[in-house]
């Protein structure tokens, strides 16, 4: 296993500890190490490492650079809201705080390179210096010259420095219009199912046996693997659901080896976790509380989306329903739905094939205020006078972002709106006022 991590420039022992900390990433670490070469040798000016989230990009680099004690600066581009922070961090970790304080206020790239050169001429690099940029895709959004300059930094500062960019977006989406120095591309593949199992099984609970825990991981992967391959997320889910898995064991109902029964017990919980914790609808603390509550009440556990409801005034609810109908029904069908004696409308003519079901695919369409009010008066069961209170309720729906105003706000005589709520939401609303909205939707006829 550690045979891959061998390099004459480094001590055997250190490489051993590195290898221990990088399970299932030996190939990548070895590749990186051989590209870096011995500390005093030049490395390629810029290396671009891409791979999915939590495929170990930062971890491998961090462990390598730290354990082998190579001079490096790790910069996370999320933290660097301005380039000044980036420059400061690099100078600070290479040359100490005196150099970093030399940077003027709002420094330009030119200042950075000047100070770097000045400092590196005083203390030339005996070992390759590495600048690691995490989340490098954010570099595209800052100064347009920053990325091309960083890629050829070695040439600009004439020092033995190598810039390593980490990103989960492919290099093709980075390349500027006029091209730039091409970095060396390195791919970190995702962990396979076996590797995930191997890594997850490592953080087992000491009070349970290895087999027991790996059986648990197996079940967890069975449920989540088709949706999520993010190691960090899986680890979080594993930690959260383990206590539930052990429950029958603690009660003495099942033996450790009886995986089938354990599976029967845990599976519904994992399915629920997928609908709530995985979507970050509830925090892990809330999730634990909810589980305890459930034991007491034995009620169905639902995510937040199931009980999202806003308390709205009675007429506002109808206004929202009317807006939904206006957004998702074609205007020509209004007569059929809302006029009591609409005469005979031919069914074949009414139901145009391609128009049907497409409204809920294409999204809400804008409608004028008049139409909204007309539908509103016909759906609400009592007589309502068009007072200012109705109009103010419309504008408060807009502020709540349940409606969006499409036309410009200056246009006062015929404003246009769009309904911005989901199907589930409107069904829940209409249930509270005993209105069967499905009957009035063209798509569901």
């Amino acid at each position, binding site marked *: 296993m550690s045979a891959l991590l061998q390099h004459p420039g480094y001590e055997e022992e250190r490489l051993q500890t590195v290898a221990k900390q990088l399970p299932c990433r030996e190939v990548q670490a070895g590749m990186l190490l051989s590209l870096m070469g011995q500390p005093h*040798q030049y490395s390629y000016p810029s290396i671009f490492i891409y791979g999915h989230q939590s495929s170990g990009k930062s971890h491998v680099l961090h462990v390598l650079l730290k354990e082998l004690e190579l001079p490096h600066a790790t910069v996370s581009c999320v933290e660097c809201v301005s380039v000044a922070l980036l420059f400061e961090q690099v100078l600070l970790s290479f040359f100490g705080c005196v150099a970093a304080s030399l940077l003027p206020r709002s420094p330009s790239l030119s200042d950075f390179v000047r100070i770097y050169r000045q400092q590196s001429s005083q203390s030339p690099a005996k070992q390759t210096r590495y600048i690691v940029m995490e989340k490098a895709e954010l570099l595209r959004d800052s100064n347009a010259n920053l990325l091309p300059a960083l890629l050829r930094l070695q040439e600009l500062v004439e020092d033995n420095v190598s810039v390593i960019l980490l990103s989960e977006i492919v290099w093709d989406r980075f390349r500027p219009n006029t091209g730039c120095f091409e970095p060396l591309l390195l791919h970190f593949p995702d962990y396979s199912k076996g590797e995930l199992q191997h890594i997850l099984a490592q953080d087992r609970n000491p009070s349970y046996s290895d087999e027991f825990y790996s059986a648990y991981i197996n079940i967890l992967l069975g449920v989540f693997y088709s949706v999520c391959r993010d190691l960090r997320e899986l680890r979080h889910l594993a930690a959260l659901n383990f206590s539930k898995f052990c429950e029958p064991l603690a009660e003495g109902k099942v033996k450790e080896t009886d995986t089938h029964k354990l599976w029967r017990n845990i599976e519904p919980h994992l399915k629920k976790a997928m609908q709530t914790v995985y979507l970050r609808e509830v925090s892990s603390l809330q999730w634990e509380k909810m589980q305890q509550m459930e034991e007491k009440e034995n009620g169905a556990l639902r995510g937040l989306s199931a009980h999202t409801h806003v308390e709205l005034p009675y007429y506002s609810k109808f206004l929202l329903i009317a807006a939904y109908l206006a957004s998702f029904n074609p205007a020509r069908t209004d007569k059929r739905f809302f006029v009591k004696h609409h005469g005979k409308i031919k069914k074949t003519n009414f139901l145009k094939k391609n128009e049907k079901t497409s409204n809920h695919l294409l999204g809400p369409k804008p409608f004028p205020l008049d139409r909204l009010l007309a539908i509103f008066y016909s759906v609400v069961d009592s007589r309502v006078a068009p007072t200012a209170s109705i109009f103010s309720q419309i504008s408060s729906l807009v502020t709540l972002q349940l409606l969006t105003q499409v036309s410009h706000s200056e246009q006062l005589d015929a404003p246009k709106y769009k309904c911005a709520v989901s199907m589930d939401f409107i069904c829940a609303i209409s249930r509270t006022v005993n209105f069967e909205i499905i009957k009035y939707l063209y798509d569901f006829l």
Partner: protein
Amino acid sequence: MSKRKARDAHLPVGECISQVQEILRKRLCNQQLPDRPEGVEAQHKHLLELLKRTAVHGESNSVLIVGPRGAGKTMLLKCVLRDLLMEKEAQKNLLQVHLNGLLQTDDRIALQEMTRQLHLENVVGDKVFGSFAENLNFLLEALKKGDRSSSRPVLFVLDEFDLFAHHKNQTLLYNLFDVSQSAQAPVAVVGVTCRLDVLELLEKRVKSRFSHRQIHVLSNPTFRQYLERVQTQLSLQPGDLPDDKFAQHWNVSIKTLCEDKSVEEALQRHYNSSKDFRSNHMLLMLCLSRVSVAKPAIKPADLLEASRMCFIDAEANMLHGLSILELCLIIAMKHLNDLYEGEPFNLQMVHNEFKKFLQRKSNSMYNFEQPVIMKAFEHLQQLEMIRPVDSSTAKTQREYQLMRLMLDHTQVMEALQKYPQCPTDVKQWAMSAFG
């Protein structure tokens, strides 16, 4: 002598390899200058002649070096400068100012940098200048020597020249070219750029002051030359290594490497896609990194592997790491793209397409809730495999935002072939022409 040699020959292999690595890495990574620039001898002579006239005879000149990226423009310029500075008079007289369009992003910064490189900070002090031209003239004036009325020649090198054309009013370029036209101080302005249309970027008044002298660096070697270049890049010069025996051994192994049939084929493929130095260096660097004590030579297999790494499709790699659900969504998008000829789509349509697929199946192992699908969709957006058509996200709901797939039909299909444990029904769904 013979005794020393005998001792040197006993250098352990590890030591030799380490030295070879060091020498070659300097060449490939640090762009160490070659003794003679190859393929651009005429340009070298021309540029050297030109700069010599400025440095020695005090003639003003302006020239642009134009060529694609990685073709060796900077290498050419550096070689010329190195050769120029070998002459005593030039070395004594010539002042150099190196500016880079990436770093000096406006004229104020450029002027500061110029002052610094000419060591005139003390002279300028706290003076306040009315205009840019005044400032520049002051700088040049300050360079005049006491004994002669002529100034010292100054060489301005403007790297990424095209970026200077974006500066406000192109003041810097205007003034530099103006000085080079009028008989003021002797200056040589050398612009380096990769844009062939760079003259179109210049304003009329700037363009008319430029000498319109262009040196094109278009490295266009034949395949034979390309092969030779690879060989010389990897070979050791006599005297590089104390251990002659190993050096000879290494050179022989490189020679046999370049004569290998499969290697030649791989190099031909590289030659067809790009002929510049940089991409060549990348390939060779990847080969070199595979050399170790256990394997003290570059084998054909190494080069083939390196070549494979260079040509690898990054998108396919990323597709490989998607979850089944995300892959299904991609397939649904592909179908929508085929069906509506590249019209943009939204999440609802994709979900609908996916549901159609699920309905045809009896078992419901992919029965996911809408929010889970939404999360997968957003992950794809985060990976920039799909992109919103317009950026106004505020007004439309997320599920109705129009998107475009950034992947190719063939990329999806190829990725599907390589996907680990891909369910057969998903594969068949992807193959079928219409949903």
